[in-house]
């Protein structure tokens, strides 16, 4: 980060439409360095589309999106954006089922991504230590040699978060990390995410209000493709606009 004051993520007036339906409608959104931010919103509010725009999967019809104030995210592809330092966890946990836990982490490891380099790549001691450390962190050290396909749903969520950590990104986008987790796992995940934030910025999308409360961060409410409300959990929960959207009229 060249200028500490520069926001990590800066979206302004982003609009995306599919066949006339506006998935994002003039969305503006800023994430500061080291911030942990939670995004909530009903289905179809544009949460996933917003992540698609940030990671280069979807090109907006209109608007600007900058990473660290210099990288224009609307012009770059997924690989480049990932290498700039934006990691993403999908809504449905996506890990490589036919690879072991440690191999999954090895693939995510920050290293030369060029094809010929990976052909001759060897894992050094330092890198190996890092893999071990992350496995400890996500609680999968004992299952290092097991195929990811054999993990439980919650473990797969964690493995994917672990892969994000291996990437060592400056911004993590985490889509519904506690879906399908037990209460205990949810608590652990909240602790994990809080631990991660600080050194990097984290944006979490979640429905589970208990979890959102546990994170205790600034919350952004999306509705119909734009920001409806922003503030603490208590603030947004008492915002009449939010109540109207969630409870209906």
């Amino acid at each position, binding site marked *: 980060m060249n200028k500490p004051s520069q926001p990590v993520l800066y979206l302004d007036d982003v609009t995306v439409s599919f066949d006339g339906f506006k998935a994002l409608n003039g969305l503006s959104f800023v994430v500061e360095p080291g911030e942990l931010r939670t995004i909530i919103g009903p289905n179809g509010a544009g949460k996933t589309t917003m992540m698609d725009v940030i990671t280069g999967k979807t090109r907006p019809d209109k608007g600007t999106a900058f990473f660290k104030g210099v990288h224009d995210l609307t012009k770059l592809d997924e690989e480049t954006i990932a290498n700039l330092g934006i990691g993403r966890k999908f809504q449905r946990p*996506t890990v490589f089922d036919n690879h072991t836990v440690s191999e999954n982490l090895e693939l995510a490891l920050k290293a030369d991504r060029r094809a010929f380099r*990976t052909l001759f790549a060897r894992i050094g001691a330092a890198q190996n230590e890092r893999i071990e450390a992350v496995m400890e962190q996500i609680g999968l050290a004992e299952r290092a040699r097991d195929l990811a396909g054999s993990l439980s749903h919650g473990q797969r969520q964690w493995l994917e978060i672990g892969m994000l950590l291996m990437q060592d990104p400056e911004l993590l986008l985490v889509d519904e990390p506690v879906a399908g987790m037990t209460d205990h796992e949810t608590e652990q995940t909240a602790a994990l995410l809080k631990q991660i934030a600080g050194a990097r910025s984290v944006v979490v999308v979640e429905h589970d209000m208990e979890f959102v409360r546990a994170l205790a961060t600034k919350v952004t409410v999306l509705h119909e493709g734009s920001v409806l409300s922003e503030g603490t959990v208590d603030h947004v929960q008492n915002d009449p606009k939010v109540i109207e959207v969630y409870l209906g009229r």
Partner: protein
Amino acid sequence: MSARLNQSLGRALVSGARPYILAVIVILALLPLLNLAVPPSSPFYLPDFAIKLIGKWLCFAILALAIDLVWGYVGILSLGHGAFFALGGYAMGMYLMRAIGDRGHYKNPLLPDFMVFLNWKELPWYWHGFDNFLFALLMVLLIPGLLAFVFGWLAFRSRITGVYLSIITQAMTFALMLAFFRNDMGFGGNNGLTDFKDILGFNLHTDGTRAGLYWASLAMLIATFLLCRWVVGSKLGRVLTAVRDAESRVRFLGYSVTNYKLFAFVLSAMIAGVAGALYVPQVGIINPSEFSPAASIEAVIWVAVGGRGSLVGAILGAFAVNGAKSWLTSYAPELWLFILGGIFVAVTLFLPRGIVGLFGQKSDGPRISKPSLANLSKMLGTVPPAPKEQRP
């Protein structure tokens, strides 16, 4: 991390099968001696055609490895690999044509017979250099590689995947077949290239040359196997299988999926080209029918039968299907197409992991997706395992 590496390598082999594989290699290597050193009257004598036939299968096994590399490990089902095989074959055929020299029917020292027949006056520019064996070998690698590069770059860049990709690879080989059927392409049209005399000065019709080509094919098969095993066992190999299983995840990890696919596709095309180049001097002809979509898809079924995602499986499949074909086409020729068709149906329905899967051993192949496992169990009358709880 040698343990980790060994583990990956071990998975490429059918574990515990190593002694058997070595035994098979030794037997295969000794076979030509039964042709060369044993008198024809002996019951152990192996006739010429058998050497030629097994030599052919060795080339098919190399092609199967090439297909398995992209299909089994990267998930790219190419229905046009016959095109790379044929291009390698044509490059070798061009050398063999030039090697005929003035011993052809028309005694033209420079022009192959079919060009004299077509009343051509000079050698087309793209036939120059093929009188040199090394140049021809280089082309065996470069031409299929270049086609794969251009085609793959166009296809992978625009993210054409799955069956779309399969269909356009089929269109590619179909277009090439039409092109090579044309006389004015300068590759002998319908008849292709044939009537070869010798290779590097060795007469193609002697037992010694036949055995030599056989050994060359066997050596190349082993070399290709080791190369593929090294590639799929490397970190690059793990990225490739990751692309197969969750392409977008790989992309969001910052890997250029296009480049990785392109690497595998070009390497695979070159291997197929080598297989074609070894095949042509043994069968003595190369013609446009090698480009036919049916030929390519038949090669795919070898891999499916053996077990995609397993290198040993690919080789096994090539031998099994071609062995059955040779036996059946002499025994009941009209039955063969029924059986081949039946193999397509049976393997996809009941043996998604091929012969290798039958033995219950690990392959690097993708595990069967849950819905299909349920279907399979339903068909076999067993109860499917309860699906894992998942949030809708």
